[in-house]
């Protein structure tokens, strides 16, 4: 098990997700965590293999989110496909929001300059917008 750790999902993250799904009195053995760690890793490999094969047939070189959802459906994992399709849509909306806030940041700076000469209401609005920008920027992190 130790030798292959770099090729598995981290067991601490897996253990935390397992614990959150069970009642407080439940205990989980280390071997059970390791087994589900391996199962989750196999789940990723299994679905990715199907998604990649579809890309090959369609002569595309990049596996994207839609390919993953489609692969889940092809493999009979319909409720995962449905949930992930909805999740992907919300994720993409979040990315668009982050991008639009980024383009408006120069306008926010100008408004901040105006705010420093008075107009407390404007200053408050600028802060609200910046806090939304920070939240939106955070959503963009996965693309690094």
């Amino acid at each position: 098990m130790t030798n292959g750790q770099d090729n598995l999902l981290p067991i601490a993250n897996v253990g935390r997700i397992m614990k959150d799904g069970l009642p407080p009195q439940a205990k989980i053995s280390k071997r059970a965590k390791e087994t589900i760690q391996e199962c989750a890793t196999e789940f990723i490999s299994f679905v990715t293999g199907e998604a990649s094969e579809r890309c090959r047939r369609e002569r595309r070189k990049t596996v994207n989110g839609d390919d993953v959802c489609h692969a889940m459906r092809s493999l009979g994992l319909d409720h995962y496909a449905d949930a992930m399709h909805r999740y992907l849509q919300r994720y993409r909306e979040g990315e668009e929001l982050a991008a639009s806030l980024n383009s408006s940041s120069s306008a926010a700076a100008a408004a901040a300059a105006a705010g420093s000469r008075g107009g407390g209401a404007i200053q408050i609005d600028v802060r609200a917008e910046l806090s939304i920008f920070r939240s939106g920027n955070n959503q963009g992190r996965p693309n690094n």
Partner: protein
Amino acid sequence: MRQARPYSAMFAGGVSARTGPHALPLARIKKIMKRSAGDSSVVDGGGGGGGGARMISGEAPVVFSKACELFIAELTRRAWAATLEGKRRTVHKEDVAAAVQNTDLFDFLVDVVTADLGDDHTDYK
């Protein structure tokens, strides 16, 4: 003054909110995906246009991060049902194996959960 919210509503609640946007590390998911995507290449080696998909968009690991949360939670709940049937409170490896064997959807995991089960002296084959 209004405090900035750490995350948008998309991530509110559940494990995601506590460990950042994603409960599982995207870099590790991407590494696992790359290994698997490479396996499906018809043509080996770096060059040539005939190979399978070798590149992974930024959103694919994001999708898997959430999918794996759902998967781990579902498999754990089914294993817990087997634990309760045995009148125990500790989820054992054989409970996970029973959950996989009892769920057609998870047929692809049978080899994973039956490997080295001999160590546990169980009846599962």
